[in-house]
């Protein structure tokens, strides 16, 4: 089990600073592993599917498929930044996760109000219904997790 002192932010910050040199930050352990794993699965699924769609039927809906590819790549960015111990990884994660949340909300809403634009499925249409609404839930969980590990922001 982790030795993280739960109630001292100073000690946590000190530990986070130390860990920037080598050991992994606490956001990559415990429950963080599950979150990163789900991000990785989603990144893989969305990217592979988008590549397949672009290769096999790009002409049918170029916007939707390019959007799917971009969202897949953002999931990859989030996967790696969440698991990275590098100095700016926390901030990169915040950006990636926030873009995902904005994307799923905007595209999800648009796919309901303007279904003709999103006749072809993308990861975010219907608030991610094609992926069990994981694209909607995951960024919220991710933001909460980043907030819980906010001491790593400046590590």
């Amino acid at each position: 089990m982790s030795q993280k002192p739960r109630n001292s932010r100073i000690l946590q910050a000190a530990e986070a600073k130390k860990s920037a040199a080598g050991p992994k930050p606490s956001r990559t352990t415990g429950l963080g592993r599950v979150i990163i794993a789900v991000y990785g699965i989603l990144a893989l699924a969305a990217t592979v599917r988008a590549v397949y769609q672009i290769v096999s039927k790009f002409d049918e809906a170029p916007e939707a498929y390019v959007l799917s590819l971009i969202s897949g790549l953002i999931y990859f960015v989030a996967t790696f930044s969440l698991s990275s111990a590098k100095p700016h990884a926390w901030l990169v994660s915040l950006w990636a996760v926030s873009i995902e949340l904005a994307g799923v909300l905007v595209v999800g809403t648009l796919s309901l109000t303007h279904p003709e634009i999103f006749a072809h499925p993308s990861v975010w249409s219907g608030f991610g219904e094609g992926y069990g609404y994981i694209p909607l839930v995951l960024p919220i969980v991710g933001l909460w997790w980043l907030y819980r590990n906010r001491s790593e922001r400046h590590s």
Partner: protein
Amino acid sequence: MIVMNGFFIAGAIVCAVALLVAVIATAIRRHPDDWALVGAIATEVFLIVYGIAAAIRQAGGKAVAGDPIEFWGYFITALIMPPIAFFWAVSEKSRWSNAVLAASSLVTFVMLFRMEQIWQ
């Protein structure tokens, strides 16, 4: 068709048992449970057998109903997940390693379901 349905039922059972064991292990263990790890190995072995069977059938001239590229895309994606979950679970001793294994089994089942849809 019947053979693949048999495969699907077998795969669903393997994934379901692996998922159940991993969920229970998440609840009661504070380290990666041996049986949860065996579950990941079992799903991987099943996928390999499924892939070989699918390759033999397609080589024998029985094409899938959907797009074969899509089918094999799903297959390869499914195939690389259990090993990643396995080695990742082994590399950290916490209850959440079991949850990662559970997620892997669940996704394997979804992939299998999609492959079966493409097949028929």
